[in-house]
Protein backbone atom coordinates (compact mmCIF):
# COMPACT_ATOMS: atom_id res chain seq x y z
CA UNK A 1 0.00 0.00 0.00
CA UNK A 2 1.27 3.47 -0.81
CA UNK A 3 -0.64 4.72 2.24
CA UNK A 4 2.44 5.45 4.30
CA UNK A 5 4.02 7.49 1.59
CA UNK A 6 0.82 9.45 1.15
CA UNK A 7 0.42 10.24 4.81
CA UNK A 8 3.99 11.51 5.17
CA UNK A 9 3.31 14.37 2.77
CA UNK A 10 1.04 16.27 5.18
CA UNK A 11 3.58 15.99 7.96
CA UNK A 12 6.44 17.16 5.75
CA UNK A 13 4.29 20.01 4.55
CA UNK A 14 3.44 20.87 8.12
CA UNK A 15 7.09 20.99 9.13
CA UNK A 16 8.17 23.04 6.14
CA UNK A 17 5.21 25.27 5.36
CA UNK A 18 2.55 25.44 8.05
CA UNK A 19 5.08 26.75 10.57
CA UNK A 20 5.17 29.98 8.56
CA UNK A 21 1.44 30.61 8.91
CA UNK A 22 1.91 33.62 11.18
CA UNK A 23 4.28 35.36 8.85
CA UNK A 24 2.29 34.45 5.73
CA UNK A 25 -0.90 35.74 7.30
CA UNK A 26 0.77 38.98 8.37
CA UNK A 27 1.94 39.62 4.82
CA UNK A 28 -1.48 38.73 3.41
CA UNK A 29 -3.10 41.10 5.85
CA UNK A 30 -0.78 43.93 4.75
CA UNK A 31 -1.45 43.16 1.11
CA UNK A 32 -5.23 42.89 1.17
CA UNK A 33 -6.10 45.57 3.73
CA UNK A 34 -9.00 43.37 4.78
CA UNK A 35 -9.34 40.43 7.11
CA UNK A 36 -11.62 38.24 5.02
CA UNK A 37 -9.59 38.61 1.84
CA UNK A 38 -6.44 37.90 3.84
CA UNK A 39 -7.89 34.65 5.17
CA UNK A 40 -9.03 33.55 1.72
CA UNK A 41 -5.69 34.47 0.26
CA UNK A 42 -3.77 32.51 2.89
CA UNK A 43 -6.00 29.48 2.54
CA UNK A 44 -5.66 29.51 -1.22
CA UNK A 45 -1.91 29.95 -0.92
CA UNK A 46 -1.54 26.91 1.32
CA UNK A 47 -3.74 24.71 -0.85
CA UNK A 48 -1.81 25.67 -3.93
CA UNK A 49 1.47 25.16 -2.12
CA UNK A 50 0.30 21.73 -1.01
CA UNK A 51 -0.64 20.72 -4.54
CA UNK A 52 2.71 21.85 -5.86
CA UNK A 53 4.74 20.83 -2.84
CA UNK A 54 6.72 18.41 -5.01
CA UNK A 55 8.16 21.47 -6.75
CA UNK A 56 9.50 22.90 -3.54
CA UNK A 57 13.18 22.16 -3.11
CA UNK A 58 13.89 21.10 0.46
CA UNK A 59 16.63 23.21 1.99
CA UNK A 60 15.57 26.37 0.16
CA UNK A 61 13.62 29.12 1.85
CA UNK A 62 10.08 27.82 2.22
CA UNK A 63 8.73 31.11 3.52
CA UNK A 64 9.95 32.89 0.38
CA UNK A 65 8.43 30.13 -1.74
CA UNK A 66 5.07 30.49 0.04
CA UNK A 67 5.17 34.25 -0.33
CA UNK A 68 5.90 33.92 -4.04
CA UNK A 69 2.77 31.79 -4.40
CA UNK A 70 0.85 34.27 -2.26
CA UNK A 71 2.03 37.19 -4.37
CA UNK A 72 1.06 35.47 -7.59
CA UNK A 73 -2.43 34.71 -6.35
CA UNK A 74 -2.78 38.21 -4.99
CA UNK A 75 -1.61 39.87 -8.19
CA UNK A 76 -3.93 37.76 -10.31
CA UNK A 77 -6.94 37.98 -8.09
CA UNK A 78 -7.11 40.68 -5.50
CA UNK A 79 -5.05 43.53 -6.80
CA UNK A 80 -6.73 46.84 -7.24
CA UNK A 81 -7.67 47.73 -10.78
CA UNK A 82 -6.92 51.42 -10.46
CA UNK A 83 -3.23 52.14 -10.55
CA UNK A 84 -1.70 55.31 -9.29
CA UNK A 85 0.48 57.01 -11.85
CA UNK A 86 4.13 56.77 -10.99
CA UNK A 87 5.96 60.02 -10.65
CA UNK A 88 9.57 59.94 -9.64
CA UNK A 89 10.74 63.33 -10.89
CA UNK A 90 10.46 65.04 -7.57
CA UNK A 91 11.67 62.11 -5.57
CA UNK A 92 15.00 63.60 -4.61
CA UNK A 93 13.57 67.00 -3.77
CA UNK A 94 10.80 65.32 -1.84
CA UNK A 95 13.27 63.14 0.01
CA UNK A 96 15.29 66.25 0.84
CA UNK A 97 12.23 68.13 2.12
CA UNK A 98 11.04 65.16 4.11
CA UNK A 99 14.40 64.58 5.69
CA UNK A 100 14.60 68.23 6.73
CA UNK A 101 11.15 68.04 8.26
CA UNK A 102 11.95 64.90 10.15
CA UNK A 103 14.97 66.60 11.63
CA UNK A 104 12.92 69.62 12.67
CA UNK A 105 11.73 68.58 16.15
CA UNK A 106 15.33 68.11 17.16
CA UNK A 107 14.96 69.35 20.67
CA UNK A 108 15.42 66.27 22.82
CA UNK A 109 18.75 64.50 22.96
CA UNK A 110 17.05 61.54 21.25
CA UNK A 111 14.04 63.02 19.49
CA UNK A 112 13.27 60.18 17.09
CA UNK A 113 13.05 57.48 19.69
CA UNK A 114 10.47 59.42 21.68
CA UNK A 115 8.62 60.41 18.53
CA UNK A 116 8.27 56.93 17.11
CA UNK A 117 7.35 55.26 20.32
CA UNK A 118 4.21 57.41 20.27
CA UNK A 119 3.12 56.40 16.81
CA UNK A 120 0.75 53.50 17.34
CA UNK A 121 0.36 50.17 15.59
CA UNK A 122 -2.88 51.20 13.89
CA UNK A 123 -1.27 54.31 12.44
CA UNK A 124 1.66 52.34 11.09
CA UNK A 125 -0.70 49.87 9.49
CA UNK A 126 -2.82 52.67 8.06
CA UNK A 127 0.29 54.37 6.71
CA UNK A 128 1.31 51.15 4.97
CA UNK A 129 -2.16 50.85 3.49
CA UNK A 130 -1.93 54.28 1.92
CA UNK A 131 1.05 53.16 -0.15
CA UNK A 132 0.28 52.23 -3.74
CA UNK A 133 0.13 48.48 -3.93
CA UNK A 134 3.40 47.66 -5.63
CA UNK A 135 5.36 49.91 -3.30
CA UNK A 136 3.52 48.42 -0.36
CA UNK A 137 4.41 44.86 -1.35
CA UNK A 138 8.08 45.69 -1.75
CA UNK A 139 8.25 47.69 1.48
CA UNK A 140 6.47 45.02 3.52
CA UNK A 141 8.77 42.30 2.23
CA UNK A 142 11.80 44.46 2.99
CA UNK A 143 10.89 46.21 6.24
CA UNK A 144 8.65 43.65 7.89
CA UNK A 145 9.87 40.36 6.50
CA UNK A 146 13.50 41.36 6.18
CA UNK A 147 14.08 39.89 2.72
CA UNK A 148 17.01 41.12 0.65
CA UNK A 149 16.39 42.96 -2.62
CA UNK A 150 17.40 39.85 -4.57
CA UNK A 151 14.89 37.73 -2.71
CA UNK A 152 12.17 40.34 -3.17
CA UNK A 153 12.89 40.47 -6.89
CA UNK A 154 12.36 36.74 -7.04
CA UNK A 155 9.22 36.76 -4.92
CA UNK A 156 7.61 39.57 -6.90
CA UNK A 157 8.96 38.34 -10.22
CA UNK A 158 10.44 41.71 -11.18
CA UNK A 159 13.93 43.00 -11.94
CA UNK A 160 16.32 44.10 -9.20
CA UNK A 161 16.27 47.70 -10.42
CA UNK A 162 12.51 47.75 -10.11
CA UNK A 163 12.73 46.47 -6.55
CA UNK A 164 15.25 49.17 -5.67
CA UNK A 165 13.13 51.99 -7.01
CA UNK A 166 9.92 50.61 -5.49
CA UNK A 167 11.47 50.30 -2.06
CA UNK A 168 13.06 53.70 -2.22
CA UNK A 169 9.87 55.35 -3.36
CA UNK A 170 7.81 53.30 -0.89
CA UNK A 171 10.01 54.20 2.03
CA UNK A 172 9.75 57.86 1.09
CA UNK A 173 5.97 57.74 0.87
CA UNK A 174 5.73 55.79 4.09
CA UNK A 175 7.82 58.33 5.95
CA UNK A 176 5.75 61.16 4.48
CA UNK A 177 2.60 59.49 5.67
CA UNK A 178 3.98 58.77 9.13
CA UNK A 179 5.11 62.35 9.32
CA UNK A 180 1.56 63.46 8.55
CA UNK A 181 0.27 61.36 11.41
CA UNK A 182 2.93 62.68 13.72
CA UNK A 183 1.94 66.21 12.78
CA UNK A 184 -1.74 65.45 13.36
CA UNK A 185 -0.82 64.10 16.77
CA UNK A 186 1.09 67.28 17.54
CA UNK A 187 4.38 65.44 17.84
CA UNK A 188 6.01 67.66 15.24
CA UNK A 189 6.21 71.42 15.06
CA UNK A 190 5.58 72.95 11.64
Amino acid at each position, binding site marked *: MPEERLSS*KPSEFEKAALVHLNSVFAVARRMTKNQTDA*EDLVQETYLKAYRFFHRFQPGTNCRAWLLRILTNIFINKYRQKAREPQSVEFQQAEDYRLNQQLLAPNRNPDPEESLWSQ*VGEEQIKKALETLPEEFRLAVVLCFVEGF*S*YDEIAEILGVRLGTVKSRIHRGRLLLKTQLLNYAQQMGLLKE
Partner: protein
Amino acid sequence: MKMECTEALREMYEVSDNRLAPQSRPEAQIHLEECPNCQNLLRLDQLVKKTVRQKTATETVPVGLETRIRQRIQDLENLTWQKKLSWLLPGRPWGWVSTATVMIVTLLVIGIWTLSSPESGFVQWSFEEHAEYIREGFKLELVSSDPAGVDDWFKQNIGFSADARRFQKGEFQLMGGKKMKFAGMTSALACLKKGEVWVSFYAVPSLETEIKGLLEEKIGTKNLWVGSEGKFNIVAWKEEDKNLTCSLVAELPQQELLAFVGLL
Protein backbone atom coordinates in the same frame (compact mmCIF):
# COMPACT_ATOMS: atom_id res chain seq x y z
CA MET B 1 21.83 69.49 3.45
CA LYS B 2 22.98 68.88 -0.11
CA MET B 3 21.81 66.71 -2.95
CA GLU B 4 24.79 64.46 -2.43
CA CYS B 5 23.33 63.73 1.00
CA THR B 6 20.19 62.35 -0.63
CA GLU B 7 22.28 60.15 -2.88
CA ALA B 8 24.50 58.94 -0.05
CA LEU B 9 21.45 58.14 2.07
CA ARG B 10 19.88 56.20 -0.77
CA GLU B 11 22.95 54.02 -0.95
CA MET B 12 23.15 53.57 2.78
CA TYR B 13 19.48 52.52 2.89
CA GLU B 14 20.35 49.76 0.43
CA VAL B 15 23.28 48.74 2.59
CA SER B 16 21.08 48.48 5.66
CA ASP B 17 18.16 46.78 3.84
CA ASN B 18 20.43 44.09 2.48
CA ARG B 19 22.68 43.83 5.52
CA LEU B 20 25.69 44.60 3.35
CA ALA B 21 29.06 45.70 4.65
CA PRO B 22 29.12 49.53 4.76
CA GLN B 23 32.50 49.35 3.01
CA SER B 24 30.71 48.09 -0.10
CA ARG B 25 29.66 51.73 -0.73
CA PRO B 26 32.92 53.54 0.07
CA GLU B 27 31.90 56.98 -1.20
CA ALA B 28 28.64 57.02 0.68
CA GLN B 29 30.43 55.71 3.72
CA ILE B 30 33.00 58.51 3.62
CA HIS B 31 30.25 61.08 3.17
CA LEU B 32 28.32 59.67 6.08
CA GLU B 33 31.29 59.84 8.40
CA GLU B 34 31.61 63.55 7.70
CA CYS B 35 27.92 64.47 7.75
CA PRO B 36 26.08 64.50 11.11
CA ASN B 37 22.77 65.22 9.34
CA CYS B 38 23.03 62.06 7.30
CA GLN B 39 24.00 60.07 10.35
CA ASN B 40 20.84 61.29 12.05
CA LEU B 41 18.70 60.57 9.03
CA LEU B 42 20.11 57.08 8.60
CA ARG B 43 19.50 56.41 12.28
CA LEU B 44 15.98 57.73 11.80
CA ASP B 45 15.40 55.45 8.84
CA GLN B 46 16.52 52.47 10.85
CA LEU B 47 14.22 53.55 13.64
CA VAL B 48 11.25 53.80 11.27
CA LYS B 49 12.07 50.36 9.89
CA LYS B 50 12.36 48.90 13.35
CA THR B 51 9.10 50.49 14.45
CA VAL B 52 7.26 49.26 11.37
CA ARG B 53 8.60 45.75 11.85
CA GLN B 54 7.82 45.65 15.55
CA LYS B 55 4.32 46.96 15.14
CA THR B 56 3.22 44.96 12.12
CA ALA B 57 5.20 41.73 12.00
CA THR B 58 2.87 39.87 14.28
CA GLU B 59 -0.69 39.63 13.24
CA THR B 60 -3.10 37.45 15.15
CA VAL B 61 -3.99 34.53 12.94
CA PRO B 62 -7.79 34.22 13.02
CA VAL B 63 -9.13 31.40 15.13
CA GLY B 64 -9.90 28.41 12.98
CA LEU B 65 -7.85 29.40 9.95
CA GLU B 66 -5.17 26.83 10.63
CA THR B 67 -7.78 24.16 11.26
CA ARG B 68 -9.54 25.03 8.04
CA ILE B 69 -6.32 24.80 6.08
CA ARG B 70 -5.51 21.42 7.63
CA GLN B 71 -9.00 20.19 6.84
CA ARG B 72 -8.75 21.30 3.22
CA ILE B 73 -5.37 19.62 2.95
CA GLN B 74 -6.83 16.46 4.42
CA ASP B 75 -9.62 16.64 1.87
CA LEU B 76 -7.05 16.97 -0.88
CA GLU B 77 -5.09 14.08 0.58
CA ASN B 78 -8.23 11.97 0.49
CA LEU B 79 -8.54 12.89 -3.13
CA THR B 80 -5.18 11.52 -4.11
CA TRP B 81 -6.36 7.95 -3.74
CA GLN B 82 -8.51 8.64 -6.76
CA LYS B 83 -5.37 8.48 -8.77
CA LYS B 84 -5.69 4.77 -8.18
CA LEU B 85 -8.69 4.94 -10.45
CA SER B 86 -6.94 7.06 -13.01
CA TRP B 87 -5.68 4.09 -14.97
CA LEU B 88 -9.27 3.93 -16.15
CA LEU B 89 -8.83 7.21 -17.96
CA PRO B 90 -8.38 7.33 -21.70
CA GLY B 91 -4.78 7.93 -22.57
CA ARG B 92 -3.30 5.88 -19.75
CA PRO B 93 -1.67 2.57 -20.69
CA TRP B 94 -4.72 0.57 -19.73
CA GLY B 95 -7.10 3.39 -20.44
CA TRP B 96 -8.18 2.31 -23.87
CA VAL B 97 -8.64 -1.26 -22.79
CA SER B 98 -10.60 -0.27 -19.73
CA THR B 99 -12.65 2.29 -21.58
CA ALA B 100 -13.43 -0.17 -24.32
CA THR B 101 -14.33 -2.74 -21.69
CA VAL B 102 -16.56 -0.27 -19.92
CA MET B 103 -18.22 0.61 -23.21
CA ILE B 104 -18.83 -2.94 -24.26
CA VAL B 105 -19.90 -4.08 -20.84
CA THR B 106 -22.11 -1.03 -20.38
CA LEU B 107 -23.87 -1.74 -23.63
CA LEU B 108 -24.22 -5.38 -22.61
CA VAL B 109 -25.59 -4.38 -19.26
CA ILE B 110 -28.10 -2.02 -20.81
CA GLY B 111 -29.25 -4.90 -22.93
CA ILE B 112 -29.29 -7.39 -20.12
CA TRP B 113 -30.84 -4.97 -17.70
CA THR B 114 -33.68 -4.16 -20.01
CA LEU B 115 -34.27 -7.91 -20.06
CA SER B 116 -34.68 -7.48 -16.28
CA SER B 117 -31.76 -9.32 -14.83
CA PRO B 118 -30.32 -7.42 -11.86
CA GLU B 119 -27.52 -9.98 -11.39
CA SER B 120 -25.74 -8.81 -14.49
CA GLY B 121 -22.19 -9.51 -15.57
CA PHE B 122 -21.28 -5.86 -15.20
CA VAL B 123 -22.47 -5.75 -11.63
CA GLN B 124 -20.34 -8.78 -10.87
CA TRP B 125 -17.30 -7.31 -12.62
CA SER B 126 -17.69 -4.08 -10.77
CA PHE B 127 -18.11 -5.76 -7.41
CA GLU B 128 -14.94 -7.74 -7.86
CA GLU B 129 -13.20 -4.51 -8.63
CA HIS B 130 -14.56 -2.94 -5.48
CA ALA B 131 -13.72 -5.99 -3.40
CA GLU B 132 -10.09 -5.31 -4.34
CA TYR B 133 -10.33 -1.81 -2.95
CA ILE B 134 -11.94 -3.04 0.24
CA ARG B 135 -9.03 -5.41 0.79
CA GLU B 136 -6.82 -2.35 0.47
CA GLY B 137 -8.65 -0.64 3.29
CA PHE B 138 -11.14 1.54 1.48
CA LYS B 139 -14.68 1.80 2.64
CA LEU B 140 -17.18 0.95 0.00
CA GLU B 141 -20.36 2.89 -0.31
CA LEU B 142 -22.71 1.20 -2.67
CA VAL B 143 -25.79 2.57 -4.20
CA SER B 144 -27.99 0.21 -6.02
CA SER B 145 -31.50 -0.18 -7.26
CA ASP B 146 -31.30 -3.61 -5.68
CA PRO B 147 -29.47 -3.15 -2.34
CA ALA B 148 -30.57 -6.50 -0.97
CA GLY B 149 -29.19 -8.29 -4.02
CA VAL B 150 -25.89 -6.45 -3.67
CA ASP B 151 -25.63 -7.36 0.01
CA ASP B 152 -26.31 -10.99 -0.76
CA TRP B 153 -23.59 -11.04 -3.37
CA PHE B 154 -21.11 -9.58 -0.91
CA LYS B 155 -22.03 -12.01 1.86
CA GLN B 156 -21.63 -14.96 -0.45
CA ASN B 157 -18.50 -13.87 -2.25
CA ILE B 158 -16.60 -11.68 0.19
CA GLY B 159 -18.02 -12.65 3.53
CA PHE B 160 -19.71 -9.50 4.75
CA SER B 161 -22.56 -7.19 3.93
CA ALA B 162 -21.85 -4.18 1.74
CA ASP B 163 -24.53 -2.10 3.44
CA ALA B 164 -25.72 -0.91 0.10
CA ARG B 165 -28.23 1.86 0.10
CA ARG B 166 -31.06 2.26 -2.28
CA PHE B 167 -30.30 4.19 -5.34
CA GLN B 168 -33.16 6.43 -6.32
CA LYS B 169 -34.10 6.46 -9.91
CA GLY B 170 -32.80 9.62 -11.49
CA GLU B 171 -30.88 10.60 -8.40
CA PHE B 172 -27.93 11.62 -10.52
CA GLN B 173 -29.88 12.60 -13.51
CA LEU B 174 -27.89 15.79 -13.85
CA MET B 175 -24.69 13.89 -14.34
CA GLY B 176 -25.20 12.23 -17.62
CA GLY B 177 -27.14 12.56 -20.77
CA LYS B 178 -29.52 10.33 -22.55
CA LYS B 179 -27.58 7.13 -22.13
CA MET B 180 -26.62 7.69 -18.52
CA LYS B 181 -29.87 8.36 -16.82
CA PHE B 182 -28.91 6.23 -13.84
CA ALA B 183 -32.15 4.47 -14.04
CA GLY B 184 -30.97 1.21 -12.57
CA MET B 185 -27.97 -0.23 -14.30
CA THR B 186 -25.77 2.33 -12.61
CA SER B 187 -25.75 0.28 -9.44
CA ALA B 188 -22.66 -1.17 -10.99
CA LEU B 189 -21.00 2.20 -10.67
CA ALA B 190 -20.96 2.03 -6.95
CA CYS B 191 -18.82 4.51 -5.14
CA LEU B 192 -15.75 4.14 -3.03
CA LYS B 193 -15.52 6.12 0.11
CA LYS B 194 -12.55 7.14 2.16
CA GLY B 195 -12.91 9.46 5.07
CA GLU B 196 -15.90 11.60 4.34
CA VAL B 197 -15.30 11.76 0.64
CA TRP B 198 -16.68 9.52 -1.98
CA VAL B 199 -16.06 9.65 -5.63
CA SER B 200 -17.02 7.87 -8.72
CA PHE B 201 -15.73 8.22 -12.22
CA TYR B 202 -17.66 7.70 -15.40
CA ALA B 203 -16.82 7.67 -19.04
CA VAL B 204 -19.69 7.79 -21.46
CA PRO B 205 -18.68 6.40 -24.81
CA SER B 206 -19.99 9.05 -27.13
CA LEU B 207 -19.56 12.72 -27.79
CA GLU B 208 -23.16 12.80 -28.87
CA THR B 209 -24.18 12.26 -25.28
CA GLU B 210 -26.15 15.25 -24.22
CA ILE B 211 -25.21 16.98 -21.02
CA LYS B 212 -28.33 18.33 -19.47
CA GLY B 213 -29.00 20.74 -16.69
CA LEU B 214 -25.37 21.77 -16.16
CA LEU B 215 -23.78 25.17 -16.63
CA GLU B 216 -21.08 25.41 -19.24
CA GLU B 217 -17.77 26.90 -18.13
CA LYS B 218 -14.41 27.24 -19.79
CA ILE B 219 -11.55 26.35 -17.50
CA GLY B 220 -8.08 26.41 -18.96
CA THR B 221 -8.41 24.78 -22.35
CA LYS B 222 -11.30 22.59 -21.26
CA ASN B 223 -14.97 23.21 -21.71
CA LEU B 224 -16.63 21.97 -18.57
CA TRP B 225 -20.15 21.57 -17.41
CA VAL B 226 -20.76 22.00 -13.72
CA GLY B 227 -23.67 21.53 -11.42
CA SER B 228 -24.71 20.08 -8.14
CA GLU B 229 -27.16 17.61 -6.76
CA GLY B 230 -27.67 17.82 -3.04
CA LYS B 231 -24.29 17.87 -1.40
CA PHE B 232 -22.61 16.37 -4.43
CA ASN B 233 -20.89 18.48 -6.98
CA ILE B 234 -20.76 17.38 -10.56
CA VAL B 235 -18.42 18.20 -13.34
CA ALA B 236 -18.63 16.84 -16.86
CA TRP B 237 -16.45 17.38 -19.91
CA LYS B 238 -15.90 16.13 -23.40
CA GLU B 239 -12.67 14.66 -24.63
CA GLU B 240 -13.04 15.75 -28.24
CA ASP B 241 -10.09 13.81 -29.56
CA LYS B 242 -11.20 10.64 -27.82
CA ASN B 243 -14.88 10.97 -28.61
CA LEU B 244 -15.81 10.63 -24.96
CA THR B 245 -18.04 12.38 -22.52
CA CYS B 246 -16.75 12.10 -18.99
CA SER B 247 -18.16 13.11 -15.69
CA LEU B 248 -17.08 13.12 -12.11
CA VAL B 249 -19.25 13.34 -9.06
CA ALA B 250 -18.00 13.85 -5.55
CA GLU B 251 -18.94 15.02 -2.11
CA LEU B 252 -16.36 17.77 -2.41
CA PRO B 253 -16.40 21.54 -2.82
CA GLN B 254 -16.76 22.39 -6.47
CA GLN B 255 -13.45 24.24 -6.56
CA GLU B 256 -11.60 21.15 -5.48
CA LEU B 257 -13.46 18.98 -7.91
CA LEU B 258 -12.50 21.38 -10.69
CA ALA B 259 -8.92 21.40 -9.50
CA PHE B 260 -8.90 17.65 -9.71
CA VAL B 261 -10.24 17.70 -13.23
CA GLY B 262 -7.66 20.32 -14.10
CA LEU B 263 -4.94 18.00 -12.93
CA LEU B 264 -6.23 14.94 -14.72
